[in-house]
């Protein structure tokens, strides 16, 4: 047992640069691959609804605007989004229609402002990786 074991470290840090950052005035960089806000490349979306089905927070909503023109509307509720990026993983197109950027300062006074909306015509690109999965896919049966 010694007295004042912390002393040298305390005195040393008195002359060191602070470890904390003056946050709103100085910002730290987020690493590449940070999971921020999800967004849509509307020209790629084939409306397979995989993201809507897999979203754990039910934050993605796809509705049909005009059946004849194949016009759809996607709403991402960022107030509910849990930033897991499962929608990006589930997206079957290549390149992916769903993306995620590194925005993280989302706070707002109104939940309305956190909604993002895209109205677009369904793309007809053939997905390379996998066919768009219908809801009860036959290939989803467990391997025997």
């Amino acid at each position, binding site marked *: 047992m010694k007295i004042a074991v912390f002393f040298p*470290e305390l005195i040393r840090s008195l002359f060191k640069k602070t470890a904390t950052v003056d946050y709103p005035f100085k910002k730290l960089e987020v690493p590449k691959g940070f999971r921020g806000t999800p967004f849509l490349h509307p020209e790629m979306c084939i409306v397979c609804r995989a993201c809507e089905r*897999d979203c754990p927070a039910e934050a993605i909503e796809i509705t049909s605007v005009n059946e004849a023109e194949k016009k759809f509307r996607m709403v991402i509720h960022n107030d509910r989004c*849990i930033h897991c990026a499962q929608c990006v993983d589930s997206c079957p197109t290549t390149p992916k229609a769903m993306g995620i950027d590194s925005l993280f300062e989302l706070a707002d006074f109104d939940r309305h402002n956190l909604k993002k909306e895209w109205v677009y015509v369904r793309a007809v690109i053939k997905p390379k990786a996998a066919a768009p999965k219908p809801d009860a896919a036959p290939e989803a049966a467990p391997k025997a």
Partner: protein
Amino acid sequence: MKFQIPIGPQHPALKEPISLRMTVEGEVIRDADIRLGYNHRGLEKLAEEKTWIQNIYLTERICGICSHSHATCFVQGVEKLMEIVPPKRGLYIRYLVSELERVHSHLLWLGVAGHEAGFDSFFMYTWRDREIVMDLLELISGNRVHYAINTLGGVRRDVDEGQKAKILEGIATLRKRSEYYFHIGANEPSFVGRIAGVGLLTKEQAVSLCAVGPTARASGITRDVRKEDPYAVYDEMDFEVGTADSCDVLGRVVVRVKELLESYKIIEQILHKLPAGDIVVKAPRKAKPNEVVSRYEAPRGENMHYIKSNGTDKPERLKVRAPTLANYPATVEMLRHGFIADIPLIFAAIDPCICCAERTVSLVNVRNGEETTVRLSDLRRRAIEQHKNAPPKRNAVWPF
């Protein structure tokens, strides 16, 4: 003269709501009672309505600190149910994250222990260095808290060479710092005086009250699921189970620092042995009717998930046992005959994660976003009205 003091559900020492009723006599605690249920989110019921994929993220949100633990425990079980075997590289990355999480959790705990003892410098320094491991986790997974790196059949993100080098560098710094904290924690007289001999839990009590994790290991029980029931990669790793037999809070500090050092060892081994190959295999959407018990050594002790499937894409039953719940009976025993001043330390020594331990009832409508604007004057008027009707509390129990 005995009187009861309420610790919680709102109390500065508790970061989450739980109610501890202490019957004290002067400064000495005579009896303690625990009341749970302030933080229920109905996860077990909710899990029955979500698909396997969605449940990964749901279980991840059981806890904010050991988020990876619950998700991994769940995923391990579901992979067995679906009869898929994740590729080696995927497993290595998954348990790399899980060891990094243990490091982050234990550093956090060291800081909390310091804060509860009023040792704020220790708190600031440990949390400063915890940032290193948080940044590493952010680098690997893209998020600081909910890593979401697990998926059925492997992991979602690969680790490249640059990240590997950064992790090794960070671990080297952390090892040095942890040794320094061990030095501080074992030598600062005011701190040691607060934690040595406090919160005694004998080995017999620990066994009979089913204590888990560092709490049990500090009482001399070598129970670590990683050694006892080695899952996934742990039978290929060389590490020891840190124990102490002082049975007090100091012992729990020692066990956690030992575990930190062992975790650094495991992380280095994982990175050096990291095999090449895929990180994920494709998982089916449904699982055959079966049941599985999945065990996982979380930073706080053993996690156990009992998962039962019924052939659909949703679980029939998901039972989550978080380590904190298992430690509550032991905590009551430890609190007895302590001082009021020891309450936060003893309670913090089990590293309580209350939201882990409480997850069952689906009652709280978090989603019921019924928002009405109440003007301050209305609020005031309402408060005054309520106050008028309330019986006067003049005859409240006066303790002395």
